[in-house]
């Protein structure tokens, strides 16, 4: 497409201004290329729909993830043995992993408690994936959301639960959304790659929490270490199984997380906004030519993603911890990446993956406590699971399955 000489050079970074100039000589040329791009977008969209429907297919939707988990566990076991743990102890560790995740009502409760934030951070990564953005910042968004939630949780006193609890939960959502807005805005306006910005914001959030917990506003009276005041009982998420045994920690946040999954599913696949998200994710230039505002999508999707991670933060401080302490995010945000990838960025897939990783987390605690195999092994197993899930041909090659399905391609380098 040739540019007439009087046209100003296309401005860098700003997508909105990259639309065709109303020049008559160019019109036909443009119409043609426009149609081609639209068709390409349609093809991509069909491909996307095909991807969604095939994810129901048992091979790529169930068999590959299952084999991935199995293979990751085996490789993880080999690593444990290489670290000098005997075969008997390794098997005992995996037994503890199983018992600690599903072995008793308490274990199941622990699994679901760990599942709750993972569903939300998984959704925070997944919805961004759908719009072609890689949100590594769920960790920081969770931290900031947790801090605003805890602030609302201890600042207001004497409010009834029906007002105070929603207020505190919402405060977390808003905090996370603000932290998500920054990379979305910078990506949309300046083209700054969201991977770098979100990672930097994670570090900044971590330092910010350390700082805030030492200020008079947050720090608990009479304490010198960085720890926040207790959340008022009127802002605590009620326990779901508290009537059976107060030690069952699974709380109302689980229901909120499931509602969030349903909402995101509806948003992505039943609304115009969701269609725009997926169209931008499939091909931003085609979406732009079709008249969608890529800027708006990038900002909106990151605000929603941040809000989801912020809700996870709310759930942690209002439902599990009742306070904030340094690093209370406990890498839940990073695990969200693994959850989103394993769940194929499908909201209900994310829920299933979160249950699995919640089980790994809960069982990992038991494994460390009873056998003495470090909980960091769980991170290794998760990383291996992502490798195998992201590279179906690899798993197909290992187990000699039929022709491999295509690998996932989400990002397009720095330029897009």
């Amino acid at each position, binding site marked *: 497409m040739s540019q007439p000489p009087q046209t*100003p*050079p296309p*401005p*860098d*970074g*700003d997508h*909105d*201004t990259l*639309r065709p100039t109303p020049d008559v000589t160019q019109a036909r040329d443009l119409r043609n290329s426009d149609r081609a791009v639209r068709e390409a977008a349609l093809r991509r969209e069909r491909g996307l729909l095909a991807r969604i429907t095939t994810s129901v297919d048992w091979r790529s939707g169930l068999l590959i993830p299952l084999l991935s988990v199995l293979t990751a566990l085996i490789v993880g076991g080999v690593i*444990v043995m290489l*670290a*000098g743990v005997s075969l008997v102890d390794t098997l005992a560790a995996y037994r503890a992993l199983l018992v600690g995740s599903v072995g008793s009502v308490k274990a199941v409760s622990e699994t679901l408690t760990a599942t709750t934030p993972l569903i939300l951070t998984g959704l925070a990564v997944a919805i961004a994936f759908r719009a072609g953005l*890689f949100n*590594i910042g769920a960790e920081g968004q969770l931290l900031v959301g947790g801090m605003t939630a805890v602030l609302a949780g201890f600042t207001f006193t004497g409010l009834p639960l029906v007002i105070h609890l929603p207020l505190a939960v919402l405060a977390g959502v808003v905090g996370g959304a603000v932290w998500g807005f920054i990379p979305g805005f910078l990506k949309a306006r*300046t*083209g*700054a*790659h969201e*991977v*770098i*910005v979100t*990672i*930097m*914001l994670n*570090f*900044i959030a971590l*330092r*910010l929490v*350390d*700082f805030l917990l030492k200020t008079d506003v947050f720090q608990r009276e009479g304490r010198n270490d960085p720890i926040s005041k207790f959340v008022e009982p009127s802002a605590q998420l009620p326990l779901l199984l508290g009537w059976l045994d107060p030690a069952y920690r699974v709380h109302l946040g689980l229901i909120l997380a499931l509602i969030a999954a349903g909402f995101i599913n509806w948003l992505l696949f039943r609304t115009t906004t969701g269609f725009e998200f997926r169209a931008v994710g499939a091909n931003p230039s085609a979406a732009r030519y079709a*008249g969608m*505002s890529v*800027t708006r999508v990038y900002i909106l999707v990151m605000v929603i993603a941040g809000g989801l991670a912020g809700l996870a933060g709310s759930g942690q401080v209002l439902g599990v911890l009742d306070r904030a302490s340094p690093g209370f995010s406990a890498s839940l945000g*990073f695990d969200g*990446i*693994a959850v989103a*990838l394993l769940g194929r960025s499908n909201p209900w897939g994310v829920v299933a993956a979160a249950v699995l990783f919640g089980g790994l987390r809960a069982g990992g605690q038991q494994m460390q406590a009873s056998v003495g*195999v*470090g909980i*960091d*092994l769980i*991170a*290794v197993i*998760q*990383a*291996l699971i*992502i*490798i195998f899930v*992201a*590279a179906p041909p*690899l798993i197909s090659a290992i187990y000699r399955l039929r022709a491999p399905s295509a*690998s*996932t*391609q*989400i*990002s*397009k*380098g*720095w*330029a897009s």
Partner: protein
Amino acid sequence: MSGSAAAREAYVVGERRTRLLTRSQVLRSRISGIVMLALAVVTMLVFVPGVAGTGTATFGLSAADERIQLAPLSVPTTGSLWVLAAVLAFLGATQLFRGFQRRSTLILGIAFAVFVAVIMIWAAAGKEFSLISMLEATVASATPIALGALSGILCERSGVVNIGIEGMLLGGAFSGVVLGSLFGGWIGLLAATLTGGVLALLLAVLAVRFRVDQIIIGVVINILVLGLTSFLTAQVLVKRPELNDAPIFRPVKIPVLGDIPIVGPIFFEQTVIVYGMFLLIASVTFLLFRTRWGLRTRSVGENPKAADTLGISVARVRYLAVVYGGMVGGFAGAWFTIGTVGRFDEGMTGGRGFIGLAAMIFGAWNPIGAFGAALVFGFFDSLQQKFAILATPIPSEFLSMAPYLVTIIVVAGLVGRSRPPAADGQPYTKE
């Protein structure tokens, strides 16, 4: 869509104003003008009262053990801050009302340098501050960042995005300390380099052969290495601390060059790893831009199809470039353990790999440019450490945020203008 309509309108207005500047450039120059004026105001209202009655700030220019001693530089605090504030105000006002146009970026850089000088004078007011040791620390802290950037450049010039630099640094740091504890520093250095190479091979196989999303692999490498090293630290190193106690490389003074005032101690009284960094920056620049191998690598990164048509094996070139890049990353990892403290801590790289990526973008995928950018980041790194020693009233958490904030500013302000290799991040299928 009202936002985009307004944007188009503003574009037209911007065009009418100057014709040479696009809307985002106009916006950027206005913002930078306002930022400079704000810095001038902050200087006058915060820093000038802050140094009242302190007299002079003294900056040491020579270390005690040097042959040629330079007198320390003393500046009157209040007076110099007023002058610097006036410079900032002048630059800001000119930018806002007339605009420096093409030189805007340079002017903004100068304004930030002036503001850094303001902060340093304020921090050193009434005290003595060794400028030379801070600049020495700048080069040292810039080393892993520059090498990380170089690792990224090697991969990305061939068209493979490497987000896993952080993991390669961490892996190199870990194997460096373990093998270094067992067999000495040089073997540790070798082990670190090879570890980076192995991790990069994983990246290359998955990216080139299995065509997995390269950003995902990079993130996975980071999670995997963080998990693995943390697991092995808890499982092995805690029980056998003798494996986490490596000899470290001491600074070696280069004869003659090391005796030059100012330049000598900054550049020529460093460790082997820092010299390795100088050597690698120079040699990779030469290899990339002056040899057949470099031309082939760059052509694969720009247009793999054309390169393939000419008979270059895209896969082979990418494998080689990525593995070389990984080895550089692993070598850089050694800096964290056997290059400085001699022991490994979980997650000790603290995002330096990502800062390296930002330096790569800042330096426009060019080794020399990336080195310059790494020096800027290294400066903020060492500034933060020195300020902690000077006990300024700024909370240490905010100081430690500085390198991350600068990184965001850099990627947000510059990625639009520095152009990545055209085929960066795209898997190639032979037709």
